[in-house]
């Protein structure tokens, strides 16, 4: 809660004697630290019937973060990412001799770089009253994106905090070899997003947060690199020019004892393309003593298909069609394990995740077998430096 005027006077008068204001219990970002991560993302080779190079995507990425308190009430956080991507990508699906879909992958290995940077400035007025503004820019050879966001948290009473915010991003794509492959030479897309959330301190050991997020996209939302098998022809991936989505998120954190905490996260979403999805994740934070932390976790995801999705179309039932597996019905299960060790100012972390998506994991099941659902392994190692 914001200090009353009489308290503010006392606090101001005592500032010279008390020096730096002591840390508050709910403060999250105002310690000065820097972080580095190296990540490797490697998709399994496609095992389903396919044509083209079955070795899929591989991404090496590096992240840098610098979190700087400015005075007692402000924090500037800057982070940068650089990625190198290579590998073949799903291009289109064609029906095989028995009607089973066959994934055709892009023969040429795509090698691309992506750089992104975000700066966020937070002003903390005290007692969970914070305002953050952020700007992000991301660039690849064929894709550029700029975004601005703002959010505010407001304590409603000693246990309840309201959060809300919005963001806007403008993306532009200029596909490679547009002339050669008859792709659109250039296109743009805008995304507007807003959210509201309530976080509640349940008791001394647990907190819960419930939030709603809505977003609206307009512009070119198709994938210029993908084709769809429609009858005997191959047409360009054609999706509607608009998409709106609403999601409900729920997060729960509980201190189980002095050495362990449980994190539960869930997300339920629907969009105007006919898709709904469910995400469930659980993580267990275990202190092993001596600054060691082990964090195992599980995640389950399930989504339903977009109205205009099919691996291939026997006839033109247009106006929209796509065979991008990300618009199909599938489920994914993932397991991860992270390790952290703190020694003095340094903190070392490392972890791995194994993710497996399949149409058979979808809630409610589906009769469609999509050949391109992905399985991947992610590994990372990181180093943080805490300045205080």
């Amino acid at each position, binding site marked *: 809660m914001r200090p009353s005027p009489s308290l503010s006077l006392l606090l101001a008068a005592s500032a010279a004697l008390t020096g730096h204001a002591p840390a508050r219990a709910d403060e999250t970002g105002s310690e000065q630290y820097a972080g580095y*991560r190296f990540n490797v993302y490697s998709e399994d080779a496609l095992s389903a019937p396919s044509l083209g190079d079955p070795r899929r995507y591989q991404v090496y990425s590096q992240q840098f973060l610098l979190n700087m308190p400015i005075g007692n009430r402000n924090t500037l956080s800057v982070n940068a990412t650089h990625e190198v991507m290579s590998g073949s990508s799903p291009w289109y699906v064609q029906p095989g001799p028995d009607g089973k879909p066959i994934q055709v992958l892009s023969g040429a290995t795509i090698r691309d770089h992506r750089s992104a940077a975000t700066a966020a400035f937070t002003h903390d007025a005290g007692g969970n009253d914070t305002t953050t503004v952020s700007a992000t820019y*991301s660039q690849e050879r064929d894709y550029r994106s700029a975004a601005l966001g703002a959010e505010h948290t407001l304590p409603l009473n*000693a246990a309840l905090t309201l959060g809300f915010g919005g963001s806007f991003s403008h993306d532009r794509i200029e596909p490679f070899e547009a002339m050669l492959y008859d792709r659109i030479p250039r296109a743009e897309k805008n995304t507007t997003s807003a959210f509201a959330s309530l976080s509640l301190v349940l*008791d001394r050991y647990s907190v819960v947060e419930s939030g709603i997020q809505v977003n609206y996209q307009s512009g070119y939302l198709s994938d210029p690199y993908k084709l769809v098998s429609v*009858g005997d022809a191959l047409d360009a991936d054609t999706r509607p020019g608009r998409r709106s989505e609403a999601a409900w998120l729920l997060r729960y954190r509980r201190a189980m004892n002095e050495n362990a905490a449980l994190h539960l996260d869930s997300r339920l979403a629907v969009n105007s393309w006919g898709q709904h999805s469910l995400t469930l994740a659980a993580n267990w934070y275990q202190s092993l003593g001596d600054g060691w932390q082990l964090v195992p976790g599980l995640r389950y995801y399930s989504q339903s298909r977009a109205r205009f999705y099919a691996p291939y179309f*026997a006839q033109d039932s247009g106006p929209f069609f796509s065979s991008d597996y990300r618009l199909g019905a599938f489920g*994914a299960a993932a397991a991860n394990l992270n390790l952290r060790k703190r020694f003095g100012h340094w903190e070392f972390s490392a972890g791995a995740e194994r993710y497996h998506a399949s149409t058979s994991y979808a809630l409610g*099941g589906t009769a469609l077998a999509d050949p391109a659902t992905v399985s991947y392994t*992610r590994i990372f190692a990181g180093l943080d430096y805490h300045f205080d």
Partner: protein
Amino acid sequence: MHSNVKSPSLSPNPHLRPERVLRWLLAVIALASLAGCATQTVQPWQRGRLARWDMRWDPDPLQAAMDQHAYFSKEGTAGEIGAAGGGCGCN
């Protein structure tokens, strides 16, 4: 191409119909707001256990960002509480 091959059958998923999902959504939101009245108030100075690093919403922001990026690229719906970040042309 075989023109007499049917498109694979597309039966709608009965359990996740939009109307049902929406009703469930509203019920739980209502519940969440009621919950505020029933729980005990924890004064700011009582939050000892809640001040721990492993009790934050995102103890490791860099990792959370990377996780979200991976899931966003590979799944059809995505997002977290908070402002949407920049996009990417992930394939």
